[in-house]
C-alpha cells in the first residue's frame, strides 16, 4: 500500500479551479517532486493535504486512513508535516523553542505539571531539549539555538522550518520550495540534508521546487501540474525530458 | 493612633501650618482644626465635587474672617476621589496624612460608604453634605446634611398625592446610580400606598445618558400625567429639551438633584417652566440667608450655587455649631477625642442653614423640611 494515496482531489476559488482532479500515489520512503508553472496549484495541493483548505472534491489517505475533512492539527497528528512557501516561523521565539514547539505532541506533560514543576516536567523538557538540539545539528543550526528566529538570515530560516516540521515526527514531509533564496552551494548542501533526513529518519518526502538542479538531483519521481491538472508523471529523468513539460515549464 | 503632629513631609501651602506650629505663631487665636472631604473633582461627576468644595470653602472663609471658632481657625482641604470607592479610601488616607481631624466624608454615596468604613474604624467624626444612601452613615460617628434616599422618595410620593398633582406617573431614573435608583425604589413603594399608579418606569445608565426619546415615548404612550425625575439636572435638562421637541408636556417633578438646572450655562429656562421639585434649597429663594449665601458664592466663584454647595456650606456651619456646643477649645485635640465630643454635640444643636433649619437624630439623619418649589418665569417659587 502506498503511504499517500490522493484520489481525484480538487478545489476551486470562485470560478478558478486551482486544483482539478489530482491523483497521486507516493510509496513509503520515496523522494517525490511536485513541479509546475507558477500558479499551477502546487501550494494549493499542500494546503489541501494539510487541512488548510477543505477539498471540494476527492479524497486523500495516509497509510490507508482517509484524512480529508480533518483539521490542520489533527492531520499533523496523523503524520503529515509541512513547510511554507512564505516562511512562517515563530518569529519572536528562539530557534530552539521553534523546534520544541514542533515536539509539542511527542513529549507530553500536563499544564498542571508545567505550572507546578512536577517531575514529568523536568523529564520531558530534558528529553525535548536533547532531541531538539539533535535535530538542529542535522541542519547545522545548533550554534544558533538561542537566536531569535526572525533574526536568522533567510536561508537558515528555511532550514529551521524543515527542522520544526521534522520535530513533529511525521510520516510524510511536505516541503514547499525549500531552496528558494539559496545559492547553488547552499542548495547543494540542502540536497544532502534532505537525502540525509530521508535516510536517517526513514522519511517520505514530497517537495515543490523550481530549482531544477535540486529536482533532478534528489527527486526519484515527479508529478507535473499545469492549470491544476496533471500534465505528466513518472521517473524524474523521463518527465524532465517530456516535450510537453519542456514547453509548459522548463523552456529551453 | 490618630495624632496629626508627625506629618513632617507635608508640603505647606500658604495657609497650611502644622497644628503645634500654629499655636505659637498665630498669637491670640491659636491653631486650626482641619476638615477634609473627598469627592469627585475630575470625571463626569466632577461638578458635584467642585460644588461641595466651593460651598465648604466659602463657609470656612466666612467663619475664619469672623474670628474663627472658639478662637481658632478652620482649615479645609478636599481630595479627589473620582467618584470611585477605591480612590475615596486613598483620598481619605491622604487627608489623614495631612492631619484631618474632621471629615466631610464623601460627596457621593458609594465612596462615602467606603470612607465611613475607615472613619468609623478610626473613630473620626464624619458629616457628609450630600451622600444620600442609607448605608453611607450607618455608624454612630457619621451624620449627613442632605436627605436620605428613602426620605426623598417617600416625601415626593407623599407630596404628589397630597397635592393631587397626578395619578398616572412615569419615572425616568438612572439605574446605574445608587442615588437615583434608591429614590426610585422608595418612591415606588410609597406611591403604591398612596394610590398613585406608576405607568412607566424607564431606566437609563451612565453609559447612555443623552438619548431619552424612548423613555419619553413610553411615558407618553402610557398616558403619564406626571414624570418623576429622581436624577441630576444635567440629564434632566436633556429630558426637558427632548420632551419639548416631541411636543410632550406632562408635569415634571424632581428632587434635590434637579436644583442647579436654572444655573446651567446658556440653559433655555423656558424649558423648565412649570417643573416642580422638592428641595431643601433653592438658589432663587428670597429669604435673607439664601440671598447672602448666593451672592457671596457668586462673587467668589462666579457661579450660582446648587444644593451640593448649599449642603456643604451648612455642613461647615454645623461643625462650627457642634464645636461650640461641645466647647472644644483645644484645636490640637486628636480626631478620636474630637469625634466623641462632636457626635454628642451634633444631636444637641440646631442649625439655621441655607437648606433649612436642621437638627440631627442620633442615627445621623437630619430633620429638616423640604420645600416644594415650582419654576416660573425662569425662577423658583415656593408652592
Amino acid at each position, binding site marked *: 500500500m502506498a503511504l499517500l494515496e490522493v484520489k481525484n482531489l480538487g478545489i476551486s476559488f470562485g470560478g478558478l479551479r486551482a486544483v482539478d482532479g489530482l491523483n497521486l500515489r507516493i510509496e513509503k520512503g520515496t523522494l517525490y517532486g511536485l513541479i509546475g508553472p507558477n500558479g499551477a496549484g502546487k501550494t494549493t495541493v499542500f494546503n489541501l493535504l494539510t487541512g488548510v483548505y477543505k477539498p471540494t472534491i476527492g479524497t486523500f489517505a495516509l497509510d490507508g486512513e482517509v484524512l480529508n475533512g480533518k483539521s490542520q492539527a489533527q492531520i499533523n497528528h496523523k503524520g503529515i508535516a509541512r513547510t511554507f512557501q512564505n516562511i512562517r516561523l515563530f518569529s519572536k521565539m528562539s530557534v530552539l523553542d521553534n523546534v520544541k514547539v514542533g515536539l509539542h505532541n511527542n513529549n507530553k506533560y500536563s499544564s498542571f505539571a508545567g505550572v507546578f514543576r512536577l517531575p514529568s516536567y523536568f523529564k520531558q523538557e530534558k528529553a525535548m531539549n536533547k532531541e531538539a538540539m539533535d535535530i538542529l545539528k542535522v541542519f547545522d543550526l545548533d550554534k544558533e539555538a538561542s537566536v531569535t528566529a526572525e533574526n536568522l538570515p533567510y536561508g537558515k530560516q528555511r532550514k529551521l522550518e524543515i527542522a520544526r516540521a521534522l520535530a513533529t515526527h511525521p510520516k510524510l514531509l511536505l516541503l514547499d520550495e525549500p531552496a528558494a533564496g539559496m545559492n547553488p552551494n547552499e542548495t547543494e548542501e540542502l540536497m544532502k540534508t534532505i537525502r540525509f533526513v530521508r535516510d536517517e529518519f526513514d522519511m517520505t518526502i514530497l517537495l515543490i521546487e523550481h530549482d531544477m538542479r535540486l529536482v533532478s538531483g534528489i527527486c526519484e519521481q515527479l508529478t507535473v501540474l499545469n492549470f491544476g491538472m496533471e500534465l505528466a508523471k513518472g521517473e524524474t529523468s523521463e518527465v524532465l525530458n517530456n516535450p510537453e513539460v519542456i514547453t509548459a515549464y522548463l523552456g529551453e | 493612633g490618630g495624632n496629626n503632629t508627625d506629618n513632617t513631609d507635608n508640603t505647606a501651602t500658604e495657609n497650611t501650618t502644622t497644628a503645634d506650629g500654629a499655636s505659637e505663631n498665630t498669637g491670640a487665636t491659636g491653631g486650626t482644626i482641619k476638615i477634609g472631604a473627598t469627592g469627585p473633582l475630575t470625571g463626569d461627576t466632577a*461638578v458635584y465635587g467642585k460644588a461641595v468644595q466651593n460651598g465648604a470653602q466659602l463657609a470656612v472663609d466666612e467663619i475664619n474672617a469672623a474670628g474663627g471658632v472658639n478662637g481658632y481657625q478652620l482649615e479645609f482641604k478636599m481630595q479627589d476621589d473620582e467618584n470611585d470607592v477605591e480612590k475615596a479610601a486613598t483620598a481619605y488616607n491622604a487627608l489623614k496624612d495631612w492631619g484631618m481631624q474632621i471629615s466631610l466624608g464623601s460627596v457621593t454615596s458609594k465612596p462615602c460608604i467606603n470612607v465611613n468604613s475607615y472613619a468609623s474604624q478610626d473613630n473620626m467624626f464624619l458629616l457628609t453634605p450630600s451622600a444620600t444612601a442609607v448605608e453611607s452613615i450607618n455608624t454612630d460617628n457619621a451624620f449627613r446634611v442632605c436627605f436620605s434616599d428613602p426620605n426623598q422618595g417617600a416625601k415626593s410620593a407623599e407630596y404628589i398625592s397630597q397635592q393631587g398633582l397626578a395619578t398616572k406617573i412615569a419615572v425616568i431614573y438612572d439605574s446605574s446610580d445608587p442615588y437615583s435608583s434608591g429614590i426610585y425604589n422608595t418612591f415606588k413603594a410609597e406611591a403604591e400606598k398612596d394610590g398613585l399608579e406608576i405607568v412607566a418606569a424607564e431606566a437609563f445608565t451612565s453609559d447612555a445618558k443623552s438619548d431619552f426619546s424612548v423613555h419619553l415615548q413610553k411615558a407618553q404612550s402610557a398616558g403619564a400625567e406626571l414624570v418623576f425625575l429622581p436624577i441630576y439636572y444635567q440629564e434632566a435638562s436633556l429630558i426637558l429639551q427632548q420632551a419639548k421637541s416631541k411636543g410632550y408636556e406632562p408635569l415634571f417633578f424632581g428632587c434635590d438633584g434637579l436644583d442647579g438646572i436654572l444655573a446651567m450655562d446658556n440653559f433655555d429656562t423656558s424649558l423648565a417652566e412649570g417643573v416642580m421639585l422638592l428641595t431643601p434649597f433653592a438658589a432663587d429663594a428670597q429669604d435673607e440667608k439664601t440671598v447672602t449665601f448666593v451672592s457671596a458664592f457668586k462673587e467668589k466663584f462666579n457661579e450660582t450655587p446648587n444644593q451640593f454647595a448649599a449642603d456643604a456650606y451648612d455642613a461647615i456651619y454645623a461643625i462650627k455649631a457642634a464645636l461650640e456646643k461641645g466647647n472644644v477649645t483645644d484645636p490640637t485635640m486628636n480626631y478620636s477625642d474630637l469625634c466623641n465630643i462632636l457626635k454628642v454635640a451634633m444631636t444637641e444643636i440646631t442649625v439655621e442653614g441655607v437648606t433649612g433649619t436642621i437638627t440631627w437624630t442620633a442615627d445621623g439623619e437630619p430633620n429638616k423640611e423640604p420645600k416644594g418649589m415650582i419654576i416660573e418665569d425662569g425662577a423658583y417659587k415656593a408652592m
Partner: protein
Amino acid sequence: MEFISYLVNGISLGSIYALIALGYTMVYGIAKMLNFAHGDVIMIGGYVVFTSMTTMGMPTWVSILIGIVFCTLLGVVIEKVAYKPLRNATSLAVLITAIGMSYFLQNLALIVFGAGGKTFTSVVSMKPISLFDGQVTISGETIVTIIVSVILMIVLTLFVNRTKPGRAMLAVSEDRGAAQLMGVNVNRTISLTFAIGSGLAAVAGVLMCSSYTTLTPYIGAMPGIRAFVAAVFGGIGSIPGAMIGGILIGIIENLSKAYISSQLSDAIVFAVLIIVLLVKPTGLMGKKIAEKV
C-alpha cells in the same frame, strides 16, 4: 405607530453614532490605530463652537468653521506630538498613548471650561417634520445629521478610492514600508488622515451637541466607544460600514429599550454586536481577510 416612532428615534441616535464612526473608521482604517482620543476631540469641537457662538457671539456658520479649523489643527498637532514619535512602535503602544491623550484632553477641558454643564444652542434652525398627524416627529437635527453623514460618507468613499492621496492612504494602511517604496510620504499621509478625522470630529461635535445639548468635558467618551463599536460592527475601515453600523446600533439600542428592557439595553446592544461578529467575523461590510498560506 409607536414602533415607527421608536425606529425614527433610533435612526436619529444612530446617525450621530454614524457621524462619529466615520471619523473613527478613517483614522482606524488608515493609521491602524484605535484613536481613543477621537471622542474627546469631538468634545473639544463642541466647546470651541460653544465658546465662539455663545460666549463670543459669532454667527453660527463662522463658529462652525472655527470649530472645524480648530479641531483639524488640534488633530494634526496631537498626531505630531504624541503619535508620530511612535511611528515604528506597535499599534498597541499608540493605542495607550491615545488613551493618555484622551485623559489629557478631558482634564484640560475640565480646567479650562469647568465641570459644570453648558447648554449648547442647536445650530440647526430647520423645523421638525411631523408625520402621521404628529404621532411621529423627526427633528431638524436628525435630518441634518443624516444628510451630513450621507454626504460625508460619499465624499470620503470617493476620496479614498478615487484620489491619489486616498490611494496613498490605502497603501499606508497595508504596509508602510512598501508604501514608501511607491513614493508615498507616509508621515504626510497619516497627518492628512488625522486632519480629516479631526475635522469630521468637529462636525460630529457640533451636530451631536445640537441634538443632545448638554456640554461637559466627558461627553465625548461614551459616544466615542459606541462609535467604535459601530465602526467594528460595520467592518473595520469600511466607510459605508461605519455609517450602517452607526445607524443600526442606534436602532438596536432604542428598540431594545422600548421592547425588552431599558436597564439591559447596553447589554443587548453588545450582545447583538457579538452575534453579528460571530456570523460575520469581519463585520457587516468588512473585507474578508485574504490570507494565503
